[in-house]
């Protein structure tokens, strides 16, 4: 075969270029460790997402140290959860699946970008060093309101981040003269113990209690409230733990058929 000298030089140069490209990509995979989305996420039946261990309650979970897991369910045309909060200096593994058609989960301006195919779970890990706010969008056509499908990823400073949840159980009303209990349930989603203070403000008084909530556990704090310390009628209360608070109203009522407010020993 008759090949011109210049053409030979060109072929050799082309091969060097091609091998060079393959080498840089291989370096990117083994050196900086840019892994491809692959089959590690496994598969899932879209009809059984609600019963799935991982996807039944999508959201942020602490694995330990600076590692977190975020599960997201995509569907036309939203993400659940639509807003994700994670701390800076964290390594986050995302698990995303779709309830209906093919979507994407793409954190704008970053390498976090994956297709979300129904029946499959996309798994990818990324590091977030600095606090920032990112948009999340779907970049695969998923129906006529595809363009409205978006979410938010907030990376907050480490000291502002927790996975604390507060829920309060309280009666709506008590009879004058009786006592009631307002129970605060503090859940700690982090793996480390949480030392904090739970406080209750009701009427013009405040009760406080120091608690240690175990890692990945919860703790109940019960506050006893005596109607004698309250005004008749509505009393607003607020339970606070760290930045979380829950409020309600407790009504002090006079038992049925009793006109006077000073005692429960009427003629009933």
């Amino acid at each position, binding site marked *: *075969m*008759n090949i*011109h000298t*210049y*053409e030979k030089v*060109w*072929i050799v140069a*082309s091969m060097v*270029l*091609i091998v060079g*490209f*393959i080498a840089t*990509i291989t370096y*990117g*995979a083994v050196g900086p460790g*840019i*892994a*491809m*989305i*692959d*089959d590690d*996420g*496994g*598969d899932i039946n*879209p*009809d059984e997402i609600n019963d799935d261990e991982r996807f039944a309650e999508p959201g942020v979970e602490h694995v330990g140290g600076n590692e977190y897991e975020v599960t997201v369910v995509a569907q*036309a*045309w*939203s993400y659940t959860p*639509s807003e994700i909060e994670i701390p800076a200096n964290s390594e986050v593994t995302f698990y995303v699946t779709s309830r*209906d*058609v*093919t979507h*994407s989960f*793409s954190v*704008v*301006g970053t*390498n*976090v*970008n*994956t*297709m979300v*195919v*129904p*029946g*499959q779970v996309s798994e990818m890990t990324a590091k977030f060093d600095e606090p920032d706010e990112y*948009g999340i969008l779907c*970049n*695969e*056509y*998923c*129906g*006529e*309101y*595809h*363009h*409205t499908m*978006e*979410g*938010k990823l907030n990376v907050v400073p480490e000291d502002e981040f927790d996975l604390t949840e507060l829920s309060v159980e309280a009666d709506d009303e008590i009879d004058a003269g009786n006592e009631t209990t307002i129970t605060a349930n503090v859940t700690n989603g982090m793996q480390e113990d949480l030392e904090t203070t739970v406080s209750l403000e009701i009427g013009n008084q405040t009760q406080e209690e120091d608690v240690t909530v175990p890692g990945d556990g919860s703790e109940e704090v019960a506050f006893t409230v005596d109607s004698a310390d309250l005004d008749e009628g509505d009393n607003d209360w607020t339970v606070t733990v760290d930045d979380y608070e829950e409020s309600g109203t407790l009504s002090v009522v006079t038992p049925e058929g009793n006109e006077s407010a000073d005692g429960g020993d009427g003629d009933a």
Partner: protein
Amino acid sequence: MRNAYLDQFPDEARVIKAAFWSSFIALAIGGVLGLVQALHRTDVFRFIQSPDYYTVLTAHGVLLVIVFTIFFLVGTFTWAVTTSLDRGVVDTRFTWAWYIMMVIGAALAGITIFSGFLESAPSILGSELNADVLFTFYAPLEAHPFFYIGLVVFVVGSWLAGVDWFRTWLAWRRENPDERIPLPTFMVLTTTLFWYICTLGVSLSILVFLLPWSLGITESVNPLLTRTMFWYFGHAVVYFWLMPAYLMWYTMLPKFSGGKLFSDPLARVVFVLFLLLSTPLGIHHQYLDPGIAEGYKFIAMTNTMFLLLPSLLTAFTVVASMEHGARQRGGEGYLGWLKALPWRDPIFTGMALAGLMFAAAGFSGMINAGMNINYLVHNTWWVVGHFHLTVGTAVALTFMAASYWFIPQLTGKELWNRSVALGQVVLWFIGMTFMTNAMHRSGLFGLPRRTAEPQYQGFDFEPAVGTVGEINMQVALGAVILTLSLALFLLNMVMTSIGSNSESIPDNTYADTLSGAEDSPRILDNLKLWTAIAVVLVIIAYTLPLASIIDAGGLFGPDIEGFRLSTWVDPAVIESLSEVIR
């Protein structure tokens, strides 16, 4: 004595002319829809509802990348086979049959897509007539059965066209048992072979999975499986529509430059490489898909990178042939020969500009092929910029330039206006420059593709350079220039066709070679050998990924029904729905 194609093969000329006009009609409709999209997306002028944007997008994609390109291809290939073998097709009735079959397929798919604009589309076969599924029709988005049937009929028509070319070649072979396959025919045959290999995937996907599922015969699909079968075809098809452009660059451009093709043997090597490598790399469109192991993606990446070789060889050969032509015309110096090229000729200039834009497209393609850097640009507007340089310029501009040569050959009428033609190809080049520069840049900051309104409630895009508004204006400007260019092209085609006969049509010939077929080993012409190797490569690249997808999700997937998202929904309902979800 005039010796145009029309004079040599009057019957074939009629079919080719019909194929070209089918392709121009698709180009006209698809092009105008492109302008509608550009103006809508960039928020310059919105006169359709955003949900209809996706109907426009589906039509734009299918009409331009399937109908326009493939109709032009079958015309060009029929011309190439008959011209280079110097004999007509075996039976023009067969040629008409496949052409009509392709028209029926295209019309069926087209009508189904366009009824997506109707407020209440007619219900046929138990479902509403529409196909808002885009060119990729990823399940579980579901189209009307007619859309799938139309595509299959169109593809089978193109298969029969291939049969026609092979038949003609075999007839010639019997008459000329010892001759080498002429280069244009060699290019047609190798291209047809990989078209058979790659379309097998999409045809099986439609016939076994999507069509029965849209008809309600099967209940469920495996979305990853049909998606992988689509991309098994989806990258080879880009080479399929590129090959007629390559054929023109190899066999005609040297002639228009005033010289000869630099090397016939290397042209054959290039086309053999396309036959071998076009299909076993489709997974590079699925770098970001879950359910496919990294190793398979790596194989697709290496195959993709090696497919750079034929394109780099083409760059060398084409530029070397142009230089040879320029020197024949009296060009001198290291770069001074460039001045001696026939820049007044719209055919030459169009093809040269198309080739240049293809070089730029090669660069962005290398980025896309790099599987880790692809994370940044995957499904962003960058990709749209990339393929508007490839199919939108390298292919479309070459086709338009070639039409300035073909239509006089096929009609015996002189081109209506060469200056308008020159202006047209230059305008296309300028329009694409504005549009694709902005698209590529916007992809770098994550602006998504395939989106009616890339404006989000919760965040803004942060361009490294300029503003989103400026990028939008640049795209809109580019789209307007492109539409103007398209209008000038169509005007020239119509005016040429209704013009009067001319005796001064150049002879129907193709470029001679400096280094001819006799310089290449005969094994290059052994199509059976190359086909066998191509099949083996496909088996290596695809058996394991397909097996693991079927193993995990089953052939028909875990109970995944179709989603016909194209029924009209009140935006207020959506708004309240998304409030509830939040």
